[in-house]
């Protein structure tokens, strides 16, 4: 078995991973840093983010305002010490990225321009036209090339190596050759993103299969707040492609089949011709998605061959504004819906977009397993609570990527070389992966079918609105699919770039995560933010002002514990929008 070793190892090369790698290299240039990613870094899903990244920069805005918007947006499930650290470090991180060359959109005098965004009382969302994630990722990737980082591109991590209670490395498949390698490290940082592909309709790319969450979960690290799944209110039907919140912050309207701005019926304010912050279309994402479901139930949505939609109207913005501020949206509509948003209405519906939940970390990105850190969507610090505000997650990548990098660098500098007992674990994993290839010749189930059935079960059982019955049904469905998964067949049993074997591994990861999501959702008998229980429609601060921690159970399912939310200066209050 080929073994290499480094001081700090990043799993995942997206926004958080690259920022963390740079942070380690800058904090301690003597450390040897490596990044393992199952795709080339510029393909990471950060690239698809469109709208913007929030940081306080304009006069009249304040850190407390950003913190309050975030905490109330998260329905008070955010750890307020984490939010305070986040808003405090946000501006500096964003300025650092600007110094690294990120092409932020500007005001005529050359200063950074900001736009309003959902759930925010002040304008603080920095943007690069409407391809913010793309520009951020490419800036981070190109800047990271300055440092002597070893890149393991297209290596798929299958297991964490844990010894003496410490995470000391990983085992990975080198996709191009099929060879299994062990990479030892004094500290490992997971930056693998979320798991939107557990659901059928998602803005997420094919690669968002929650691999890092599953790695930590199987190593005994709890997953926090998994029941909170964010549905972005405006995705294109059929493809699920994201239509950025910026369309609404620039002034777009959401209309039902009668051309009526229906959000005014859902306690989100009064319709005004210009966007009003924290009101109507600039409300938080969970409330907007929930409003869609209610409209659907009332029969006021538009039926199309690809399901029910509502309309997003940006015609009144005019061609010049659209071409300057929303050019990518126009491109996407023209290409994928054959319509020009300058003249026509855009059909949209809620699609799964972001996982508020993830690997449980503290405010420095450290997990409960020494030597293992996590940052980005894979982690749950938690600053997003029960519902994330748009444009907070891109900033989160920078702030917590840097924090986790620095913390991991400090940890790694104090550690001895990884121990010898790891090789046995690695060889064990190599055998298991070999058997995955060996034992699949006579299977009868197709991976794609099982994946689609899992996605269908999750959408039916754990969608925007859930109840005990739908969740139990979903749990049963997932259990049955897990059984059938033991019989999954592989057409491709070669070693060279075997993407079907990777799909098998990804599906096994997603099935574990689906169980964690359902178990957490069943246990939380209240409605808060993105987790809406029709059988428990009220928020219950008495019992549930706490994070759910899902621990993996060997026989299947998860054991749920609760961890109280850290409250510092903002006692729980009512979430008010539009008033």
């Amino acid at each position, binding site marked *: 078995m080929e*073994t290499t070793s480094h001081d700090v190892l990043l799993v995942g090369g997206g926004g958080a991973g690259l920022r963390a790698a740079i942070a380690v290299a800058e904090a301690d240039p003597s450390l040897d840093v490596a990044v393992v990613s199952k795709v080339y870094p510029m393909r990471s899903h950060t690239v698809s983010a469109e709208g913007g990244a929030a940081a306080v920069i304009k006069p009249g805005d304040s850190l407390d305002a950003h913190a309050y918007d975030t905490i109330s947006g998260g329905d008070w499930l955010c750890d307020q010490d984490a939010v305070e650290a986040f808003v405090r470090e946000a501006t500096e991180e964003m300025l650092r990225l600007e110094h690294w060359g990120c092409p932020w959109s500007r005001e005529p005098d050359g200063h950074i321009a900001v736009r309003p965004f959902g759930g925010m009382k002040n304008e603080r969302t920095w943007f690069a036209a409407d391809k913010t994630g793309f520009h951020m990722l490419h800036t981070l990737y190109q800047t990271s090339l300055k440092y002597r980082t070893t890149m393991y591109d297209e290596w798929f991590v299958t297991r964490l190596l844990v010894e003496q209670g410490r995470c000391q490395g990983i085992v990975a498949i080198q996709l191009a050759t099929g060879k299994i390698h062990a990479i030892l490290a004094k500290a490992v940082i997971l930056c693998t993103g979320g798991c939107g592909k557990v659901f059928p309709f998602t803005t997420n790319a094919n690669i968002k299969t929650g691999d890092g969450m599953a790695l930590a979960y199987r190593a005994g690290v709890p997953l926090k707040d998994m029941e909170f799944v964010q549905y972005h209110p405006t995705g294109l039907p059929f493809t699920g492609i994201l239509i950025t919140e910026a369309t609404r912050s620039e002034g777009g309207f959401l209309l039902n089949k009668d051309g009526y701005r229906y959000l005014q019926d859902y306690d989100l304010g009064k319709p005004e011709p210009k966007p009003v912050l924290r009101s109507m279309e600039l409300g938080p994402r969970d409330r907007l998605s929930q409003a869609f479901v209610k409209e659907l139930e009332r029969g006021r949505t538009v039926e199309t061959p690809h399901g029910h939609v509502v309309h997003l109207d940006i015609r009144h913005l005019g061609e010049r504004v659209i071409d300057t501020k929303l050019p990518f949206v126009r491109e996407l509509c023209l290409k994928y819906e054959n319509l020009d948003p300058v003249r026509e209405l855009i059909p949209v519906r809620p699609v799964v977009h972001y996982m508020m939940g993830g690997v449980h970390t503290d405010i420095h990105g450290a997990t409960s397993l020494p030597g293992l850190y996590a940052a980005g969507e894979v982690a749950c610090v938690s600053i997003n609570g029960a519902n994330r505000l748009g444009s907070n997650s891109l900033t989160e990548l920078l702030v917590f990527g840097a924090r986790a990098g620095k913390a991991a660098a400090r940890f790694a500098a104090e550690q001895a070389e990884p121990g010898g007992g790891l090789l046995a674990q690695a060889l064990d994993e190599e055998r298991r992966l*070999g058997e995955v290839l060996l034992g699949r010749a006579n299977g009868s189930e197709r991976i794609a079918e099982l994946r689609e059935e899992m996605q269908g079960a999750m959408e039916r059982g754990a969608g925007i609105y859930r109840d005990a019955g739908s969740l139990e049904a979903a749990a049963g469905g997932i259990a049955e699919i897990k059984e059938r998964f033991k019989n999954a067949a592989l057409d491709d049993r070669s070693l060279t770039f075997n993407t079907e074997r990777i799909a098998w591994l990804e599906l096994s990861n997603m099935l574990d995560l689906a169980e964690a999501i359902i178990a957490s959702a069943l246990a939380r008998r209240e409605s808060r933010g993105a987790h809406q229980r029709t059988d428990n429609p009220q928020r219950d601060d008495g019992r549930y002002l706490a994070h759910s921690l899902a621990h993996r159970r060997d026989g299947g399912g998860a054991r749920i514990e609760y961890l109280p939310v850290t409250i510092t200066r903002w006692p729980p209050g009512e979430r008010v929008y539009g008033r």
Partner: protein
Amino acid sequence: MSYHSRVDRRWATRRAANPEYEPYHPKWHRKRVPIFWWLERPSYTKFITRELTSLAVGYAAVLLMVQVWVMARGPGAYERFLAILASPAIVAFHAVVFLFLLFHSVTWLNLAPQALVVRLGGRRVPDRVVLAGHYVAWLVATAVVAGYLLWGVP
């Protein structure tokens, strides 16, 4: 720290049908570029023609220099030179050369907007304008030279 295991081959599970294959060392395939690659796409053919017609430009420049050199040798030599140029074969040849020259000039001029980005007052001058400017300059230069040669305009 590296441990090369003899058990590597154990997990190369199936019998590879290609006897040249070594486990974990797949041979990449490099496609040979065919000799007539430039016939594969019309744009490649147009590109190669554009490049080859530069020979016509070179020829025209050489012809001009020869003309000047012959003129320096006196009116008799020049008259004989002109007679050669007037022969049907040479005229036909030069007709073809002229077409190549036109093709080369037009294709090169058409590339001008991509190579020359002019900004006036903060806005980029549209490609059409840059192109038109080049053609106008070309025509004016041609008119001036033609006027001088044909009608002795000083």
